[in-house]
């Protein structure tokens, strides 16, 4: 092994590989996905987020790597010297199409970005599996390893009532694609609170507190970092949820203003989403060096005092 000189910053070798017949050089440790993005290629991703280690559970970003029997997830496979990658073949397209269809037929993807466009691009028809089954109220009580044998007359899905158990945010697991990002943000990757986990198995897999207790009885500290990473709108500010229900949510009319949280000395960056001169939700830029998109309850939800106007 050759010795590397490391100063304050880790020195990274560069790696040369071929993607779709084009030679590209990127730093060691990069993923195939980031290499593709460097080249300006779009690979669809659903469960991939920029602040969480990818779980590569959705399998929509699959690409062909020469020498590999199966497709590989571009979001987490690291580049290797001499790798030959194909991102746009019959196999990758089929795989993306079917993943979009499988998710689209089981989950409400109406708020997931780009899905409509990808459905057109990959000719995905989520409805072709059949008639959707009615929403259920007992997904949280599933018995592991047992299910009622399907009779094929309707298509199972995860549609279920919205969970509203606190004043700050709602959980609409009909929209959950099981990307695991909220669990990782709540647990070991950011917040270290572990209020939610992945429970159950197979199609009955779900995000849950222990025994599905309300968030108010759980360890939740309402940092909202799970909302920040949720790619599907399953986790949502109560303010946004209520406005959507009332039909007054108008994203195109909203402005986004970056500022610094006034509460403590950490100096987290806030992005205030404002509609009609009211703050309707708060996010945080995930590429910001202070907290990488993470906030605490005060920065995330403590904005009402700003708009308590005299009557």
């Amino acid at each position, binding site marked *: 092994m050759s010795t590397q000189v490391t100063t304050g910053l880790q020195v990274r070798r560069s790696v040369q590989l071929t993607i779709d017949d084009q030679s590209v050089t990127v730093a060691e440790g990069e993923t195939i996905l980031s290499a593709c993005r460097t080249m300006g290629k779009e690979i669809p991703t659903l469960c991939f987020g920029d602040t969480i280690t990818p779980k590569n559970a959705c399998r929509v970003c699959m690409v062909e790597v020469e020498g590999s029997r*199966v497709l590989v997830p571009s979001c987490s496979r690291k580049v290797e010297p001499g790798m030959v990658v194909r991102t746009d073949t019959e196999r990758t397209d089929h795989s993306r199409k079917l993943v979009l269809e499988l998710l689209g037929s089981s989950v409400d993807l109406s708020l997931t970005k780009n899905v409509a466009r990808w459905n057109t691009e990959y000719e995905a028809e989520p409805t072709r*599996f059949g008639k959707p089954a009615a929403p259920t109220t007992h997904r949280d009580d599933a018995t592991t390893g047992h299910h009622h044998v399907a009779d*094929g007359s309707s298509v199972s899905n995860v549609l279920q009532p919205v969970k509203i158990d606190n004043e700050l945010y709602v959980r609409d697991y009909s929209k959950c694609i*099981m990307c695991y990002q909220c669990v990782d943000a709540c647990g070991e990757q950011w917040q270290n609170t572990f209020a939610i986990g992945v429970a159950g198995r197979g*199609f009955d897999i779900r995000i849950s507190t222990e025994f599905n207790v309300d968030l108010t009885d759980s360890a939740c500290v309402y940092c909202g970092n799970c909302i920040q990473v949720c790619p599907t709108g399953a986790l949502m500010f109560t303010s946004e949820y209520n406005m959507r229900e009332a039909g007054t949510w108008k994203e195109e009319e909203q402005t986004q203003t970056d500022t610094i949280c006034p509460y403590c000395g950490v100096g987290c960056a806030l992005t205030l989403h404002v509609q009609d001169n009211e703050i309707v939700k708060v996010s945080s830029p995930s590429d910001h060096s202070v907290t990488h998109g993470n906030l605490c309850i005060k920065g995330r939800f403590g904005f009402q005092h700003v708009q308590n106007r005299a009557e």
Partner: protein
Amino acid sequence: MDLKVNSSVATRDERDAVDSVLGTPTQYTQGGTRGEQDLRISRAGEALRNLRHMLLPTLHAVNDRIGWISRGSINYIAQQLDVAPAEIYGVASFYALFSMTERPKRQVHVCIDLACRAMGGLKEDQLPEGTHPSPCLGTCERAPAVLVIEAGNPARHEILAPATPEQIKSLAKGEWPEAEATVVSATPQAQDTSSKLVLLGRIGKVDPLLISDYQKHGGFDALRKAIQIGATGVIDEVNTSGLVGRGGAAFPTGRKWAAVAGQPAFPHYSICNADESEPGTFKDRVIMEGDPFALVEAMIIASFATGSEQGFIYLRGEYPRAIRNVQHAIDESKKHGFLGDNILGSGFNFNLTIVRGAGAYICGEETAIFNSIEGYRGEPRNKPPFPVEVGVFGKPTLVNNVETLVNVLSIVKDGGAAYAALGTDGSKGRKLFCLSGAVAKPGIYEVEFGITLRQLIDLGGGMRNGSTMQAILLGGAAGGFVGPNDLDLPLTMEATRAAGSSLGSGVVMVLDQSVDMVDQLRRIAAFFRDESCGQCVPCRVGTVRQEEIVSRLAKGVQSQDIELLRELGTVMRDASICGLGQTANSAIDSAINKLKVFAV
């Protein structure tokens, strides 16, 4: 982490069960009584987190004693291990043998899987009150099978097979089954005393509970030889033998051993994958029940060769007798100096622990097994990195199947070259086949690679009286079907691969004219839907869609449904994280293409 538990408190019995594994808590934050020492010391952080691998055994202890796992017990375990209740709930709810709701102490698990339903067993909609369906119990030679579990201190576990519907009813009412048939009944060849078996050589001839008997029949000779020729000598012999993994993936064993042995990171670990759950497979169970010391000896040799001082046998929770016999063999081996420090004066130290599975087929996947042992949900990991580099606890790990390991004993004793001389060019040595279904003498058969399907069935006494062959399932639910015209297929890796099938774990399940093939396919689809871990979309949703489509086809064949199934099969094979999803369509696909099950 600030641990937050709610107000539910464990009962005294629940606390006792937890303490039986983790010890009585010494401090208030761990659920103990508040005392003087709480003001001065705190055992927390790293020290507690390093006990995470005790989570699965602790959950077993509660489930065994109480019959289910309550909020109070999860809170108490959370305090003892400093793991959040939501995490523990996530782990516990992953396994089918655990319940998070109160239930009767007596649980009757009725096997409704392929071999049992083919042999007249009950189906999911025919089960009597107080019983529930179970995936394959690995007792296919005596199908149909039932597992009875009764919580208590200690809990009792027993298999009844074959079981009539009347017997199942009385089990649900509280009757206890008689002791199982001896294991030799599962090995028809061993009943012929003149047979020259190697892998099954001791079964029926020695008392599986007597170490002296084992030693009288060549036991620990291989270990002595291994110590004499040294670790590299052992790996050389295994390499020369051409042995490949017998769990289904057929990876060269010697190469795996050399790779682990050569890893610079330490410690190394060794794992025996004894989570045998592939429907129709029962060979590992028979070895563990009938010759448990052989597995212990083979694990010592494998660990000696690869430099591992801690080994695990991940043993299926539904195998009560195998667990008893292997645990006994470990205890006896320790007593006689074959486990522990400085084994046979070699300077090699090795400890071996059983980790009991809790009802999850996926935990037989070689990386899911790591997560399960570490106390996490048994979800497969991504490869690369491969287990030989980053395995259990993030360290280089050897994972081998029971049958693979037991083969090593004769390889070390008689040399790799002698082993390589057996079998065919592409498939060296001996193989165990799990013959079940409509044959005269179902059981485990030990043969040299190269015999044909017909010869194996003849070895099993041919078809049962009155039975005509309809189809044969090779390799289990993850394998594929062949028809009565394929009987001249040699049972080798290369020939089955060329025929578009697979030997897998050695399942040969013979289905006769009475079997409803569509019903078998529906069961295979339901099996994968139940056993998918749920992590990746192609498998989580794909197995559900597959079941729905097969059920639809059962009512009436539409060509677009056949096409949809083919498309599903492709995405599951191409894009699933692990072998479960990748093979979840293979048997159904083979039934459609080869047996023309849904032909219009």
